């Protein structure tokens, strides 16, 4: 019982692997085995969303996924949302520009969730942003600037897409 298993993930586009007990939570595997410390641990009880990652194209709270369940999955963290040259991606840049963070603790989860929200709904209303971000808590900003940053990201991403077409 509790033997370690061989875990493989596609993490931010790279093949990674490690040994872990099945009971290891995905967030602990990312942070402690793989040294990917973007996703944070806020509550560890599935409430705050600081640990949000993208798993097989869906936002999930990685404190409530066993690494065994995630074995073989494609996982994206906030580290994977930078531009290829290493500069900030659009959503990251908009959070900076619109002061979508203060202490920054919730930010990796916010940005990773916002990334998926804008894939699912590229032109959200303010209300849809608030509803879609309801699984992420922030104790600093009062949310106003987070919502602004996400709406600005949507505009920017849509403009980029139109320019490319």
């Amino acid at each position, binding site marked *: 019982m509790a033997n370690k298993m061989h875990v493989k993930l596609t993490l931010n586009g790279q093949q990674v692997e490690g040994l872990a007990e099945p009971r290891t939570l995905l967030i602990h595997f990312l942070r402690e085995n793989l040294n990917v410390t973007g996703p944070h641990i806020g509550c560890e009880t599935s409430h705050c969303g600081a640990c949000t990652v993208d798993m097989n194209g869906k936002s999930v*709270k990685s404190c*409530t996924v066993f690494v065994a369940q995630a074995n073989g999955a494609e996982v994206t963290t906030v580290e994977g949302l930078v531009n290829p040259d290493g500069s900030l991606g659009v959503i990251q840049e908009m959070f900076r520009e619109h002061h979508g963070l203060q202490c920054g603790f919730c930010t990796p989860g916010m940005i990773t969730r916002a990334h998926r929200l804008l894939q699912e709904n590229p032109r959200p209303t303010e209300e849809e942003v608030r509803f879609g971000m309801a*699984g992420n808590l922030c104790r600093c900003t009062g949310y106003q600037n987070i919502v602004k940053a996400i709406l600005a990201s949507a505009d920017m991403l849509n403009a980029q897409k139109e320019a490319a077409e």
Partner: protein
Amino acid sequence: MIPAGFDYHRPADLASALSILQTHGDEARVIAGGHSLIPMMKLRMAEIAHLVDLQDITDLKGITVGDAEVVIGAMTTQAELIGHDGLAARLPLLREAALQIADPQVRNMGTVGGNVANGDPGNDMPGLMQCLDASYEVVGPDGARMIPAREFYEAAYFTARGDDEILTRIVIPVPAAGTGYAYVKQKRKIGDYATAAAAVLVGKGGASVAMTNLADTPVWSEEASAALAAGDIEGAVAAMLDAIDPQEDMKGPVAFKKHVAAVILRRAIAQAQARAA
């Protein structure tokens, strides 16, 4: 918040999953989305030697929308249920209720089967399924059987499903055309379980009323349903208040819960009646 260790199994089909359950008896438990089970395991309120992950069993997935009935595979996530437009057109009550469960991340993992199988009185889908008169198919070593949702819940975390059975799908009869519906839930914040929630169907000569988190099981009331079918709203509320058995907890004292239950039920009835054709 580290759960106790376990052996992990990820069978590819239902037969293998059932045989693992048979081999290990009550030492084994299935995991669907894990969003009720993992929190319990972290608190060490559930210790499981063998965890059987159902995620690879494709037979347990999918939604079929027929004219007379709708069939939902147990491993369909709450997000998939919400995203299915054909289902929302045929049975809008399901989407309305599912959108009030937890938050987007939780709904991406949490399954319909896990929600109804769990047996937590706080879960929203059991009351909803009782209102709709759904049945659950469970499959065990002796084959498949159907259990009506109204007979499934025995006490908190005790259901009519045997330890060696897996819930495979949920069959819901489609209400008659023109039936009004509503799911109304009072919660303290997003991601919270209901202080009180009501599922209501009302149409020509028929009605069905169930409530959530006001007893150690969901409460479908035949008397309340009959009163509402006869157009007697106050009779329906009185019958429901008689049927529930709320306990004091951090959501409030008993008198408050009964008050909220009546308010929520009246709102749900008004909304369902307004939607009835």
